[in-house]
Structures are given as C-alpha cells and as structure tokens.
C-alpha cells in the first residue's frame, strides 16, 4: 500500500516528490505529537486531581475527554493582547523560539531500528544544539513584554535553564562514553548487549543501571529544564509571576504547547538514552515501538507525580543543586566510568 501511494505521489508531484514525501512523514510525526500534547494536559489534571483526592475535569464530553479541545478553542477566541511599550515584533516571535525547537528535534528521534525520519550520524549532538535554542523564547518574551514581572521572570528562568544544561550535557557525555556513537539508534542498540541481555533480562543491561547517578541527574535536570514543578520558577502559579504574564490567547497557547511538547521530547530522550528505547525489558517478549511508548508514558507520569508531591524549591536551592551538586557528581562519575572502562572489569566491550 505504501508503495502504491509512493507511486501515485511520484506521478503527481514529479521532481517535488521527495519534498512531499518528507512533509507527509513529518505530518505523521507532528500530528500524533500534538494530540499527545493536548491529552497530556488533560491527563495531568486528572492525575493530579486523583492524587489530591479530587475528580479532575469531567464535564466536557464523556469523562471530560473533550476538555483539551474546548480549552484550545477558548484560547483561539481570546484576544491576543500586545501591551503598550512592548517590542511588537520580538513579542510575537518569542513563542516561536520556544515551540519550534521542541518540534524540530523530533526529526532524528528513532522509533525503532528502522523507523526514523533522518538517520544522521550526529543525532544526539543535533538534539543538544537545537534544544539549546529554546531559552531564547523565555528571554525574549520577558524582555519584549515591557513588564517588570515578565522581565525578572524571564531572567530567572533563563539562568535556571542554562545552569541545568551544563549538568545535562555532562550526563550525556557519560552516556556517549559507553555508546561509542552519537547516533540515537546506535545508542539504543548498544544497550541491547551485555551480560544480562544475553540471559534474557535486557532491562538490567540498559544504561540506567550502570549509569544510575547520571540517570538521576538527567531526570532531575529535565524537570528543571522544562521549568516544571518543583522547579517551576518560571511561573509558580500561586506565588510568583513568570515570563509569559503579558501573553494571552493563542500567543500564550504556544508557550503552553511548547512546555508540554518539551516534556514529551525530554521524556523520549530519557527513554532512548537510559531506558533502552524500543527494546523489550525481558527476553521472551519481542522488541517494538510499543515499549518506547510505555517508557515515555512512565517518564511523563514521573513528571506529573513529582508535581503533585513536592513543594516548590527556592531559587537559591535550585541553583545550588545545579552548580554545586550535579556538576561535581557528573564529573566524578565521568572519571569513575572512565576508570571502569580502562579496568579489566569493563562491561562495554
């Protein structure tokens, strides 16, 4: 069927065919992603509701399932207020800076050993560099709004994001040391080998176990990086005002989408880098894309769970955790893994 479609499109578009075919594949990635983003917001409200012995949204549609769509429609019909004295152009492109990297990074994510849009050599490097652009959305929206609260909030969040980017980068370096490749597909394949994988217990061969401290650093860093509770200095709903206070309507919706799209992206990365991607945890079950989705959902649930559980960090505590705990921990573990690989006990041959 795919071949027939390919042939049809080739006839229709001629030399433009590769472009059309790529666009089609991109739509196949983005459409489910946006749906997942919409229902992640719904799932978050439900889960936090249950954890706090409430019901959560249940009015719009059966079990409240239409709620995210109703929210989207409402935001669409709200006025996009552009405050006086703001820099109009920068004000309007700032949401794009937040959202576009969260989408563009998906170009190189492998879904299973063959299903990947762009199988480039340096895919992890690409993701690291493209996601580092996301901080501009925050800085620019804070500056362009011409509001002190937004400006202070933007600076605060930007400093927090760059602080955790260092810890994240160092954790990824340790993953690279044991993987011998920058390609995400190869990194997953590398986790499928080892003593336990041969015994049929693949779950113990994945990177999370030998690199456990890095896994913890990465998990906490991605929460800080996406500005989520308990590190939500960007917008502590009940206490402090964040960088997007002046945004309304669809301009705000893009920031909202970007936050959840980023959550899904970093959860996917955590699954691919530390939790064995599409590999099956036990030998007697087949590998497959479903495992990847299960792992992503588990990491996303972790996001919601800690949001419902922990009180908010203070800003100096956040900075201390990033600079004084995670960076030394990463450096030490980098040396430990280096020595481990040089010793006869090396498990990554």
């Amino acid at each position, binding site marked *: 069927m795919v071949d027939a479609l390919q042939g049809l499109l080739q006839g229709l578009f001629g030399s433009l065919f590769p*472009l059309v075919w*790529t*666009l089609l*594949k*991109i739509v196949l990635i*983005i459409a489910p992603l946006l749906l997942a983003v919409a229902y992640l917001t719904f799932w978050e409200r439900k889960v936090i509701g249950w954890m706090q012995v409430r019901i959560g949204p249940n009015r719009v549609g059966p079990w409240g399932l239409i709620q995210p769509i109703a929210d989207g429609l409402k935001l669409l*019909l*709200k*006025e*996009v207020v552009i*405050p*006086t004295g703001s820099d109009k152009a920068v004000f*309007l492109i700032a*949401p*794009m*800076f937040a*959202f*576009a990297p969260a*989408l*563009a990074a*998906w*170009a*190189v994510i492998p879904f299973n050993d063959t299903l990947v*849009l*762009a199988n*480039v*050599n340096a895919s992890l490097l690409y993701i690291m560099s*493209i996601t580092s652009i996301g901080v501009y959305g925050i800085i620019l929206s804070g*500056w362009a*709004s*011409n*509001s*002190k*609260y*937004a*400006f202070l909030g933007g*600076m605060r969040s930007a*400093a927090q994001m*760059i*602080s955790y980017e260092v810890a994240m*980068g*160092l954790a990824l370096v340790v993953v*690279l*040391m044991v993987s*011998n*490749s*920058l390609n995400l597909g190869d990194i997953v394949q590398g986790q499928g080998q080892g003593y336990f994988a041969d015994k049929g217990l693949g779950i113990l061969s994945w990177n999370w176990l030998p690199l456990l401290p890095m896994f913890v650093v990465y998990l906490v860093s991605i929460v800080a990086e996406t500005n989520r509770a308990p590190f939500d200095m960007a917008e502590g709903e009940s206490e402090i005002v964040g960088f997007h206070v002046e945004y309304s*309507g*669809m301009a705000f919706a893009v920031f909202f989408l970007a936050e959840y799209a980023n959550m899904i992206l970093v959860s996917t990365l955590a699954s691919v880098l530390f939790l064995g991607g599409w590999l099956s945890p036990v030998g007697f079950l087949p590998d497959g894309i479903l495992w990847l989705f299960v792992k992503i959902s588990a990491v996303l649930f972790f996001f919601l769970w800690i949001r419902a559980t922990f009180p908010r960090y203070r800003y*100096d505590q956040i900075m*201390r955790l990033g600079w*004084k705990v995670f*960076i030394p921990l990463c*450096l030490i573990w980098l*040396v430990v893994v*280096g020595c481990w*690989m*040089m010793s006869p006990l*090396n498990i990554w*041959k």
Partner: protein
Amino acid sequence: MLESYFPVFVFILVGIAFGFAPVLTGLIVAPHRPDSEKLSPYECGFEAFEDARMKFDVRYYLIAIIFILFDLEVAFLLPWATIFKEIANTDSVRWFGFIEMMVFIAILVVGYLYAWAKGALDWE
C-alpha cells in the same frame, strides 16, 4: 551524508511555521478591542512608574559566562567521549587517550574549584 539532513532541514522549516501559525490565526480570528487599561503592562495594579528594562545583578552575567565555559568543555568532551570505547579497547593508545582527558578535566576542575571558593556559584 547530506541527503540524510534534508528531512532535518524541512523539519526545522515546518517547526518554525508551526511556531508562527497559531499566533497568526489568533491575531486574525480573535476579537481585537484594545483599550489603554487593557494594554498597560501588569504591575499588580500600580501604574508603571519606570522603564521595565532595568539594570540587573551582575550575578546573572557571571552565571552566563561560567555557563559558556562549561558548554565549551562539553563541546570538547564530546568527540573524546564518542571514541572513548574505541580508545579503551585499543592497546596502543588506551592510557594515552585516557590520561590526556583526565589532564583536561583536572585543569578545568581547578577553575571550577576557584569559582566555588570565591563564591561565584553562591546565590544568596
């Protein structure tokens, strides 16, 4: 190699389009009835009494500078980390490749400790 980057290129363009499209539709579809109170920046009910873009604590610059330096360190570590498995399993270069990087990291740790001792990483 370049062919595999074609989808990435297209994806970046699509991502940018998706970043702009909702804002544009919002501007077109949604009502637009501005008044001076609505458009005034949020200041907890006060009138804005000075320019919002003000001078800032030097600590933010310091964090940004230290971030650049550590980002560079990561950029230097990346090529080494990618071939480290190869190095560790090749007898002729293993100790050379290992010690070389340990020296690199040790020099940077000195800088890190200096910054720590001087209180540059504190946030009071």
